[in-house]
């Protein structure tokens, strides 16, 4: 340990820092604080340690140590499974569920972030080892730490996801009724049979229309999981009026088959349309919903 302490300790610290930098506890409350966060912090530390000891073990000619990395990968896949299972269970208790696509995205993120922590500490330990060949130990550590911080920034930038704002324009929209049909900017969403519910929609309801910027975003927005994640975000941030025995006020996003635009009407606890627009803009684009038909020859030609 004394021999390789200068490699292992900074690597673990930076790997751990990398995991912490990607662990945000915000309005989503996922991972839940404090217990969920605690287990992820611990896992991050384990991931960082595994990455940090790989190079020193190789230098000691302990080649079997590398197999531990694959063991770690197995463990983190398990993390993803656990996250998925627990989120699916919790989803049953949500008034407006997250939907499986959103859950898959979250659990994927947890797995990937552990790999990021492991890779960061592995890279830092490589930098320090190489640096140690040419410079004094202190300088080698310094180089490793500085490059490590740059890597953390790069990783954070790479895994940060797009928001709806970047793929579509969001505008406030108008709610009207055609008989019992709830209509937002000309697109009918649902049949609301109960008259008092219709009156509440007209009095308090707010609506937005989401207009995709190109064909890629049109396909992405048509994904049901993506729409569900928007509905879920609305319900968390603005609160919903619905209850289990009063499903009329579920936020519902419907698609205009002609133009591919999405409209959504909601009666929430805070009916401020400006913030509805803001929050839809800030909703993340799910990795599993993202499609890019324009990257293909057929898709490009067809959209001409």
């Amino acid at each position, binding site marked *: 340990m004394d021999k390789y302490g200068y490699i292992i300790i900074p690597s673990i610290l930076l790997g751990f820092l990398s995991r912490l930098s990607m662990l945000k506890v915000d309005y989503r409350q996922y991972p839940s604080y404090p217990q969920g966060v605690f287990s992820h912090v611990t896992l991050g530390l384990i991931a960082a340690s595994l990455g940090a000891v790989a190079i020193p073990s190789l230098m000691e000619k302990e080649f079997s140590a590398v197999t531990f990395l694959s063991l770690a990968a197995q463990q983190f896949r398990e993390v993803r499974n656990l996250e998925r299972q627990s989120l699916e269970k919790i989803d049953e208790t949500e008034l407006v569920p997250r939907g499986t696509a959103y859950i898959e995205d979250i659990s994927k993120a947890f797995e990937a972030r552990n790999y990021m922590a492991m890779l960061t500490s592995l890279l830092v330990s490589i930098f320090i080892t190489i640096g140690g060949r040419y410079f004094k130990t202190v300088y080698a550590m310094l180089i490793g730490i500085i490059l490590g911080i740059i890597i953390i920034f790069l990783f954070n930038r790479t895994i940060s996801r797009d928001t709806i704002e970047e793929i579509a324009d969001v505008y406030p929209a108008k709610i009207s009724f055609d*008989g019992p049909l709830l209509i937002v900017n000309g697109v009918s969403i649902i049949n609301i049979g*109960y008259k008092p519910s219709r009156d509440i929609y007209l009095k308090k309801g707010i609506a937005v229309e989401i207009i995709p910027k190109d064909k890629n975003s049109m396909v992405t927005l048509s994904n049901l999981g993506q729409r569900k994640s928007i509905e879920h975000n609305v319900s968390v941030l603005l609160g919903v009026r619905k209850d289990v025995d009063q499903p009329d006020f579920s936020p519902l996003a419907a698609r205009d088959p002609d133009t591919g635009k999405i409209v959504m009407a909601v009666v929430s606890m805070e009916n401020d349309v400006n913030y509805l627009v803001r929050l839809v803009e800030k909703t993340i684009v799910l990795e599993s919903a993202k499609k890019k038909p324009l990257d293909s020859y057929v898709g490009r030609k067809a959209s001409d």
Partner: protein
Amino acid sequence: MDVEIKGNILAVVTTDEKKIMCGGVPVFLAEDKEEQEKLSLKLSKITSGTIHDLENGCYIIVSH
């Protein structure tokens, strides 16, 4: 494992009995529009279903 039926018509509430044929769904006959609305609301509260208006004098309660 819980089995849930979705997208199913749970009940029909009508003011016009001529519009209804037997079809395996419970049908409730209401005297007038007011009773029809009240009945539908109660049924939707009990079944957690949504009320939809067919605009021919019939309301249906559907589980979503």
